[in-house]
């Protein structure tokens, strides 16, 4: 736990931009890992298995939440972006760098793909498999995220 909690939490925090939710999901990920330990076959490093499982936990939870509240962020409106950025910056004490804050302020879909691709190094095909979106959508969300981040950082 001690060896991996920081990495798992960082992943949850960047994917959700919500420190409280990231703590819950970190706990969920470790409990799920405990339950699924028998399915870890040693084909990859334990960390790789655990982080992939964490991404699954985050997306399963988000799908469940979506079904519950039927609320999807799709806004490209800079004012909305700024508003969410203020909220995210206020919530996440762990995110101190400009880039971290700008990532946290991205719309959910763009943020998730940016974190998985540019921060974590997943390929578009893997992201599509993990998140249930098409490869083309993954690319579109990534390029959109980069555009919004460049705008936010140049402001």
């Amino acid at each position, binding site marked *: *736990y001690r060896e991996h*909690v*920081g*990495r798992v*939490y*960082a992943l949850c*925090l960047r994917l959700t931009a919500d*420190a409280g939710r*990231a*703590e819950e999901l*970190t*706990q969920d990920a*470790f*409990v799920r890992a*405990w*339950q699924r330990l028998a399915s870890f076959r040693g084909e990859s490093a334990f960390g790789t298995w655990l982080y992939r499982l964490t991404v699954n936990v985050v997306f399963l939870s988000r799908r469940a939440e979506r079904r519950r509240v039927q609320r999807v962020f799709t806004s490209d409106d800079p004012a909305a972006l700024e508003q969410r950025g203020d909220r995210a910056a206020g919530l996440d*004490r*762990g995110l101190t*760098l400009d*880039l*971290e804050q700008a*990532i946290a302020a991205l719309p959910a879909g763009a943020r998730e793909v*940016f974190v998985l691709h*540019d*921060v974590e*190094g997943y390929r578009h095909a893997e992201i599509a498999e993990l998140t249930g979106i098409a490869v083309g959508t993954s*690319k579109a969300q*990534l*390029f959109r995220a*980069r*555009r919004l*981040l*460049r705008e936010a*950082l*140049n402001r």
Partner: protein
Amino acid sequence: MICPEMEVRLNEYVDDTLAARERAAVEAHLAGCAACRAAVPELRRLIAGARALPRSVEPRRDLWEEIAARIVGRQRTFWRGALAAAAMLTLVVGLYRLLPPSTALYHPAVQGWAAVQADYEQATQELSGPLAAQRCRLRPGTVALVARNLGVIDGAIRESRAALLRDPANAEIESLFAAASRQKVELLRWATRVAAS
């Protein structure tokens, strides 16, 4: 600002995923477009910055206690379920023993615990032979389950037998011994039937 029609190509250019011909086309565009040319190092800085972000961020509080509590809670739930199943099994066995004997079940033709013991042992031996011969026709999971249950029943038989040696006149222990022996014969009959089917 990047030329809108170049956004996809420029991103693929910095990701190095373009074919040689497309790459050359982008470079030709960059040669004549200052805005797109300026965007390339910006994109590269952004991607490098993302890769350089700390891989690990410590949570604001220790999460382990809650994780451990949830794991222990799940284990307790499992054991509660297992105990409930065991209680149900005890109830079913108890009811089974209260019901009138069925002709479908095995009953010894003799009386007295020594005779009963001999009779069940003979029945057990008669069934164990064919079952061992046809064991390979059973699924591994079934073989394991039968072996596990036989182990439990044999344990009960051993305990009953030892108790009867200490207290030979105890009719309740005789009944327990007979019940355990009957269960063993029934289990062997079932397994033999399944293996032969």
